């Protein structure tokens, strides 16, 4: 492992940006204050990815020199830097898209948007690098508060109700999670993942604690049947915020679930994994069908998020080996996470630009878009490719890997669900595309080309993930198995 301050600065740079926004509120436009911090955070995340890839070792830092179990460490492993790079690219795309706010944006919504965006970024980087169960809790709370406020940013009654429901779900999830953390502490007096890995036993208290934590995190990641809060929240937020919420925010609790079941208590595939996969399968089937019936583009995309989150949970029973990170199920699941992140961010941003151009996002009235906004529509189509799992796209590779893993482990029902989910996704994506390709000449407001370009770039990132080789991806195994820190770094 490499001792490095980079993870610390990745968490704190957006916090510095938040402070700068508060200090400069009266003198400078918020986007100008935030821009250097966006750039710096992007640079930090990409250079961390580069460091981890070249040194083939995780970046670790023990804060204050205090080692666990007393102290806290930040540790950027292969999975962590993949998600941080995803976050950085999506955030940059969102920042470019939101650079010129719509004409009716007020001082309140502009300032709040940039401040909350930076807050989310800090929380995400913390969630991806933290190693301590209570540190995760702090990251989740930062994430929830910023996300709830973003949902309510438009100030409409619908948005406020959606934000309230979201907050109540998030609070319930937090309390369940915290109760689990308490039981773990009472059982082991250790909260550090690596330390727990060495001593954790699959006894009643530990399993109950993990179940409580997992249930709480499921509410926050909106896994079926705890998903009801998500569609109104993600559809009601301003489009750049929806992009961040759907592409990134729901992924953080998922990653923590993954760390609990792979790092903290690695168990051979058994009932818990099957239950999670079962709920994931239900999410894919039920929510895809509901997505088909949506009249509004943003709601359709939000239901699609629920289905795509379902795919992530399919990976749990597909990693049966003693070293799950060597399995193709692991690679498939994480590639699905990354490619859905890019594709969904592009899709929500595209929906936002379409809304700005047309003044509505009713699926049935999208005619004429193809001629007037070809770049936006191309981005939408490419992102749709990844959601359906058609080649060439990250979604294709991810779903192919999951499918292969399902066949190899003999989990035929999972294979069937993956195929059915792809077909359903094709239905709802093509339905929207078909309407957009239809003739029509509605009045349209112009949308700057650089913003359409940013959306296209994100969609192309999802496409580019389709060119990684079809085997366990070395980056995703860096830093595994988790080892306890033994010396003062």
């Amino acid at each position, binding site marked *: 492992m490499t001792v490095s301050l980079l993870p610390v600065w990745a968490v704190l740079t957006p*916090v510095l940006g938040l402070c700068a926004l508060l200090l400069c*509120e009266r003198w400078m436009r918020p986007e100008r204050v935030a821009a250097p911090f966006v750039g710096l955070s992007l640079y930090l995340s990409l250079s961390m990815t580069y460091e981890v890839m070249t040194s083939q070792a995780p970046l670790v830092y023990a804060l204050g020199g205090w080692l666990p179990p007393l102290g*806290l460490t930040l540790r950027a492993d292969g999975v962590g830097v993949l998600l941080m790079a995803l976050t950085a690219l999506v955030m940059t795309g969102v920042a470019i898209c939101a650079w010129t706010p719509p004409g009716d944006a007020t001082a309140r919504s502009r300032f*709040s948007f940039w401040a909350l965006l930076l807050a989310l970024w800090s929380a995400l980087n913390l969630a991806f690098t933290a190693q301590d169960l*209570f540190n995760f809790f702090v990251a989740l709370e*930062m994430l929830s508060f*910023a996300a709830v406020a973003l949902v309510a940013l438009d100030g409409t009654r619908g948005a406020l109700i959606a934000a*309230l429901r979201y907050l109540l779900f998030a609070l319930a999830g937090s309390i369940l999670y915290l109760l689990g953390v308490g039981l773990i502490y009472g059982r082991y007096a250790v909260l550090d993942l690596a330390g727990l890995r060495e001593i954790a036993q699959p006894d009643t208290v530990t399993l109950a604690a993990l179940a409580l934590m997992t249930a709480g995190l499921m509410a926050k990641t909106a896994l079926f049947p705890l998903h009801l809060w998500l569609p109104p929240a993600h559809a009601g937020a301003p489009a750049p915020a929806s992009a961040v919420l759907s592409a990134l925010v729901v992924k953080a609790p998922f990653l923590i679930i993954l760390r609990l079941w792979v790092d903290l208590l690695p168990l051979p595939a058994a009932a818990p994994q099957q239950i999670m996969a079962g709920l994931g399968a239900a999410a894919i089937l039920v929510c895809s069908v509901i997505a088909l019936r949506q009249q509004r583009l943003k709601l359709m995309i939000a239901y699609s998020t629920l289905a795509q989150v379902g795919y992530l949970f399919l990976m749990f029973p597909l990693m049966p080996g003693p070293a799950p990170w060597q399995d193709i199920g692991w690679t498939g699941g994480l590639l699905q996470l990354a490619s859905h992140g890019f594709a969904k961010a592009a899709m929500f941003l595209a929906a936002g630009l379409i809304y700005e151009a047309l003044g509505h996002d009713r699926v049935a009235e999208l005619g004429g878009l193809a001629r007037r906004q070809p770049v936006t529509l191309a981005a939408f189509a490419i992102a749709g490719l990844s959601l359906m799992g058609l080649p060439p796209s990250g979604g294709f590779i991810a779903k192919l890997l999951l499918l292969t893993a399902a066949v190899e482990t003999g989990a035929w029902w999972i294979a069937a669900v993956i195929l059915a989910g792809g077909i359903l996704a094709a239905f709802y994506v093509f339905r929207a595309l078909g309407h957009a390709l239809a003739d029509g000449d509605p009045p349209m407001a112009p949308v700057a080309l650089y913003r359409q370009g940013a959306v296209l770039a994100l969609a192309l990132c999802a496409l580019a993930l389709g060119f990684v080789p079809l085997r366990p991806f070395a980056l995703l195994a860096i830093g595994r198995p988790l080892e306890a820190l033994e010396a003062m770094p």
Partner: protein
Amino acid sequence: MTELLALTLALPLLAGALFIVATASTRAALFGFFAFGLFLALAWVALDAVDVALTEAAIGGGATGLLLLRLNGRMRHPVSLGEPAGPRLKIAAGLLAALVTLALGALLLALPEPAPSLAAATVEPLPALGIGNPVTAVLIAYRALDTLLEIVVLLIAVVGLRALGTDRGWGGRPVPWPEGEPSPALVFLARLLIPAGLVFAVYLFWVGADAPGGKFQASTLVAALWLLAIMAGLAPAPCSGGRWTGRALAIGPLAFIVAGTIGIAAAGSFLAWPEPVAKPMIIAVELALAVSIVVALVLLVAGPPERETGR
């Protein structure tokens, strides 16, 4: 601690919780919550966690209760998220609650004996830090990142609260509270309590290094006094977009990060406290944090801005 003392605290807690849930009047439930918070703080004292008791009394019971009471006074109609529960749902919920209580109780009884502990590990480095209270050491040294980010959570909550306000009130002061002239009794009480309270807050802040107390407890006390002064019309509520408000909110995290950076150069690690000056540095950072906490708490209780800045 004897069983009798535990019982005399546990029974009112349970009765209070049942009253809060069962009573039909929201206002009664809120006053019940205040009493509940008081007994909860006493329970923390009985558990030998005076630091937590102070925080619970100030924030858990006091500030939260005040916030909800103010909310109840301001709400013109209740916001409902569903239908009133029928008898069937009530029975099901009761069974579920009983089941959860039993399961949780069983899990607690299943915990290992003797309990694993980090207590010894927290005591050992105390001399080098120059502080005597291990809880403070956990908050400011071993788990300093949690504390730093917890202040950021408060900041995010303030930003969120402002984001949830109206456009018309952006950058202004919160709605006045209460509406109309404050009663002479309240003004008298405020004039009496505020100086005494401030002295006690300084004391709490100062002893926090070695005895129970510290920045949170002192900050909440100052925040409560400020709120009292606002209620009595003796002090203005902070202007949410004001120059000084922004500075006060940012100074805590910034001072913490600067101290952490000094730690890299002076003690070889981010957020490490260099031995000879550990205590003065910790106190300086805690003071900056206290400023941020006070302003954040007052803003959070006072609510979103709704009044124009230029009065």
